[in-house]
């Protein structure tokens, strides 16, 4: 038997016991033994696919099992196993004013680049979007944050939304624009400007219609269970459409 320590919020399901004696040769078997004794614990420890929920940590003699062999980590009689909660949360809000300012500037600069035939400006826009993606903010959003918002020219539009799909959309746009820039610099003008216009159209669709193609792609990849694409669309929202619900 191994002793498993139960954290405060789960003690309701163990009749108030702070520790439970469990059987098994691995962490996985020990947890199975625990939920056999206290079945109500299952849904709080595991998701539908029988994977440990991300906020459930297990420590074996004060070592995180993720640093050992995870659920397959072997355990012995005198080991102490501990369930420790990760406590996390926070507002999942996205300021759509920053995103729209970014789109407007991407469109404006790309159109200027096309009219004046300035491939270096395309490089600059692609670079701005790539830097924004890496640093997790809209690339030209600083124009909104530093000038438009403080001067009260544009009001924040905070919506209950996931920031990750927007980041993916911007990264996708940056890649398309970068390929376009390379095409322009190597003399493939039609392909180059074609890709620039593709980015202009997608940014325009997002700015004027509220449909983010990159975000829709993110959610499709999520449905195909591609690792890393974990967010679900906000409630009552078509994947890719701007959420209606105000925070």
């Amino acid at each position: 038997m191994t002793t498993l320590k139960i954290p405060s919020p789960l003690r309701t399901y163990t009749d108030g016991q702070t520790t439970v004696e469990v059987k098994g040769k691995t962490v996985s078997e020990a947890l199975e033994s625990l939920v056999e004794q206290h079945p109500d614990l299952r849904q709080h420890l595991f998701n539908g696919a029988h994977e440990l929920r991300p906020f459930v940590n297990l420590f074996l003699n004060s070592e995180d099992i993720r640093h050992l062999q995870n659920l397959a980590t072997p355990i012995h009689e005198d080991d102490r196993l501990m369930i420790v909660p990760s406590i996390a949360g926070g507002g999942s809000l996205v300021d759509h004013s920053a995103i729209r300012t970014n789109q407007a500037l991407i469109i404006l600069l790309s159109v200027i680049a096309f009219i004046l035939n300035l491939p270096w400006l395309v490089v600059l826009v692609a670079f701005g979007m790539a830097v924004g993606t890496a640093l997790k903010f809209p690339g030209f959003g600083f124009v909104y944050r530093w000038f438009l918002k403080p001067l009260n020219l544009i009001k924040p539009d905070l919506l209950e939304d996931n920031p990750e799909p927007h980041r993916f959309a911007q990264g996708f746009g940056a890649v398309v624009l970068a390929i376009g820039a390379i095409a322009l610099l190597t003399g493939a003008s039609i392909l180059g400007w074609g890709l620039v216009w593709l980015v202009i159209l997608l940014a325009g669709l997002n700015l004027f219609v509220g449909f983010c193609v990159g975000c829709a792609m993110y959610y499709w990849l999520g449905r195909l269970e591609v690792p890393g694409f974990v967010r679900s669309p906000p409630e009552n929202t078509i994947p890719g459409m701007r959420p209606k619900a105000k925070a």
Partner: protein
Amino acid sequence: MRLQILPAVLERIHSQGEAAYPEEGAGLMLGEISQDQRQVMEILTLPNVREETARHNRYLLSPQDYLKGEAEADRLGLDVLGVFHSHPDHPNRPSEFDRQWAWPNFSYLITSVMVGKAHESRAWRLTEDRVNFIEEEIEIVENTIA
């Protein structure tokens, strides 16, 4: 369901939200449970260990800090009742992200901090099926329960 809290303790939670602004501040609430009531008697402010760029709308307490909270509760003869956190420049309703990461039986007290000033706190508890948060009435009491 009710969450009783001493005015001085609520005051400390609000000051903590203001001190963390524009980032989210968080910590654990310790107290006593008697029948249908819970009373917050002590709070433990813990560091927000999320990366700096995400701290304006996310908080994360490390497992080690959580264990400190349980040890402190044991020492004081109390229970960990739940978590308090602030929503800088946002309403004190739980977000979808709050729900996905919520623990059952915990009270989640959220303080809206608008332009650096704590406005109001509301408390929430996850339903058993993990689908919704329901509001828990906050009662400000002068005396501790016997």
